[in-house]
């Protein structure tokens, strides 16, 4: 049994008491106006003081969070290094930077198209947010659904800001992405006839969330990794890309690499480069905890930006409504949205529901922040404050055993600390989860820099200004394959000129004339969690 505080115990009793009533009387959905209002008043994206305007580069004048500005306008790691570009250590057709789901999908696709591919990753292949995506992957593959309905859900959920041609591709190629994964051997939840077991996610109008229990991303990632290894695609691990190399024609033509352990500098030459470096949760924007993996430090954005690629919606982040708020050991860890898909409600200190279970993530997160900060109806936790997520409702709705069968990872995560989520609710608070924006690309996955492609969370514009659950696992597959396809096609016709890092020098000149003295070296590569008073 977990050692709850007295206040928490009293509040928990109220949650239990109101449970039957809440089961019968669902909290109503919000109107469009109510959603707009709660977002503006509570969502962290609207806190002006957290932002500043960029002074140099392709997005000069645009606002970004301070933490990102410091890196985009940071001091390049290659600055003090002697780098010999004339004798590359690697020479390949397609260089994939990043070892998550997008990078792996891209590498497999490019390899299948006959390209000489190499992957480079600063940790191991599979150390990525993909591995931690629990809830599922969307695709409109049922009779009552269609790509057009999927499109409308995602476009509205993203506040009508998604790039049409990217969202079109996402929804239209979704069923094929599921089929591709299934043919690789991914074990989707199916009934005995082979029909996919699908549920709702926040903001979906059809049940199109496919899952592999609550290890959806892990199951997809380990299958992709196995396939990369079966194809014997070289994976250079524990090696970070620290700068994009261009050629004298201004095309991307490789990357400077750094061995994470020996700090040895290596040069990779390539006909095309794919950035699949993921998100930025480990920058802890606005002091938020994060559900992201250890390497999520926006490296790809920094590399692409210095090479001259434009970013899109880089000011908007997703704060997942339900990060673990207690126990402190898992503070900020993701509690999958599937918990709410299966019927668990959000409940305040007095045992009252305050939001419909499946509003979109940004709206739901905003109502939790409002409940705690404005209405003072939160519950004090070790690290701050939180609200209840009433998990025992799941077995009441779906029958005994539903939690064990459908969300085993959640049961295990809390079970380790003596919390049985079948019997007790859990404490949650929003956690920094996803980078909605990123590098601007064409439908073929190419950035503003020729031969520099992007896939996965590093892309901006697929989802607009908020992403629906299950559209990220989908986008890494669709746009990973997309980048692999077009980067390998392009590689056939590219002739690489003389390699250069002159664009880095140019960028530094710009910094200087803008009067910026960089505070940070970038890309950051890893966060530093060592004790600060040492």
């Amino acid at each position, binding site marked *: 049994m977990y050692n709850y505080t007295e206040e928490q115990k009293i509040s928990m009793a109220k949650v239990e008491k109101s449970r039957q009533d809440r089961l019968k009387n669902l909290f109503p959905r919000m109107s469009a106006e109510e959603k707009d209002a709660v977002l503006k008043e509570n969502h962290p994206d609207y806190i002006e003081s957290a932002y500043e305007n960029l002074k140099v580069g392709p997005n000069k004048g645009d606002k970004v969070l301070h933490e990102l500005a410091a890196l985009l306008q940071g001091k390049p790691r290659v600055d003090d290094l002697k780098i010999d570009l004339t004798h590359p250590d690697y020479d390949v057709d397609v260089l994939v930077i990043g070892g998550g789901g997008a990078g792996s999908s891209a590498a497999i696709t490019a390899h299948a198209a006959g390209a000489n591919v190499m992957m480079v990753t600063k940790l191991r292949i599979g*150390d990525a947010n993909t591995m931690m995506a629990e809830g599922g992957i969307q695709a409109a593959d049922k009779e009552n659904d269609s*790509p057009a309905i999927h499109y409308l859900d995602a476009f509205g959920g993203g506040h009508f800001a998604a790039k049409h041609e990217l969202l*079109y591709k996402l929804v239209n190629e979704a069923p094929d992405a599921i089929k591709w994964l299934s043919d690789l051997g991914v074990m*989707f939840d199916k009934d005995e006839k082979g029909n996919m077991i699908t549920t709702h996610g926040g903001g979906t109008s059809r049940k199109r969330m496919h899952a592999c*229990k609550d290890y959806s991303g892990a199951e997809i990632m380990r299958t992709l990794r*196995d396939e990369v290894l079966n194809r014997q695609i070289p994976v250079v691990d524990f090696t970070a890309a620290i700068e994009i190399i261009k050629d004298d024609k201004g095309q991307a033509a490789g990357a400077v690499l750094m061995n994470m352990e020996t700090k040895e500098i290596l040069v990779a030459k390539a006909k095309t480069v794919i950035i699949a470096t993921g998100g930025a949760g480990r920058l802890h924007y606005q002091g938020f905890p994060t559900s992201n*993996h250890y390497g999520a430090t926006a490296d790809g954005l920094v590399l692409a930006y210095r090479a001259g690629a434009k970013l899109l919606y880089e000011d908007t982040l997703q704060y997942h409504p339900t990060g673990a708020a207690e126990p402190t050991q898992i503070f900020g860890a993701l509690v999958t949205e599937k918990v709410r898909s299966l019927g668990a409600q959000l409940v305040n200190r007095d045992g009252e529901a305050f939001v419909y279970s499946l509003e979109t993530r940004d709206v739901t997160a905003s109502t939790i922040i409002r409940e705690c900060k404005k209405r003072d109806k939160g519950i004090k936790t070790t690290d701050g404050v939180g609200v209840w997520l009433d998990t025992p409702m799941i077995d009441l709705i779906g029958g005994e055993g539903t939690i064990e069968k459908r969300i085993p990872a959640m049961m295990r995560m809390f079970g*380790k600390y003596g919390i049985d989520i079948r019997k007790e609710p859990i404490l949650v608070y929003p956690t920094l989860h996803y980078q909605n924006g990123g590098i601007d690309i064409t439908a073929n996955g190419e950035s503003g820099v020729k031969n520099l492609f992007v896939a996965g969370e590093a892309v901006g514009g697929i989802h607009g200004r908020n992403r629906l659950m299950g559209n990220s696992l989908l986008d890494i597959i669709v746009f990973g394959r997309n980048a692999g396809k077009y980067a390998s096609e392009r590689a056939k016709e590219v002739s690489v000129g003389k390699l250069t890092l002159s664009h880095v020098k140019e960028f530094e000149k710009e910094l200087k004339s803008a009067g910026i003295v960089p505070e940070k070296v970038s890309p950051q590569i890893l966060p530093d*969690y*060592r004790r600060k008073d040492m």
Partner: protein
Amino acid sequence: MENLVNVYFFGKRYRVPESLTIMKAMEYAGYQLVRGCGCRNGFCGACATIYRIQGKQELKTCLACQQQVEEGMYVATLPFFPLVKQVYDIEKVKPTEQIMMQLYPEIYSCIGCNACTKSCTQGLNVMQYIAYAQRGEYEKCAEESFDCVMCGVCSARCPAGISHPQVAELARRLYGKYIAPQCEHLNKRVEEINRGDFKELLESVMNKPVEELKELYNHRVIEP
């Protein structure tokens, strides 16, 4: 001030707050982790760890990101273990008993010591899923092994040199691709899209003015 406990990283003593996980305690002690740290949430298997509590016999295993420190804990991380991963073509293998014999014959040398199960950081019945693999019962092997994070601790403890996580990975892919029932509605939808059945509808939605899309979105019918 929070209670401090004594923990020993690779034999060296540090005093750390008792609420921390092993991973956070190492960082508190001053380690900047490169190896042995991945998702920090119990999914990636990067932080396999072995420990023993001073004065106790039992050797315990865990994921460093999931395990709280204790007084007298002697910790050795296992950031890498040389698992054997056999290369195969998923399009050419078949879900027969022979494929295991061919790729992972060492599973038949299992001596039934159960060290794998006892050491599993996920609490899985590892020896049981290997038994299923031996018999070619891939569905059962896949189900039993599903929560595996491939941390490799089981293999580190195995006297027969079995790479359990890789055996299970093969079983899951065989099951997912060849044994699980085919999904007809998925295949049908892919055909329809390839035929262009949805193109017109999708383009018409895409090309509507935003105001109209807002109306459509705010009044769309939601499946109960």
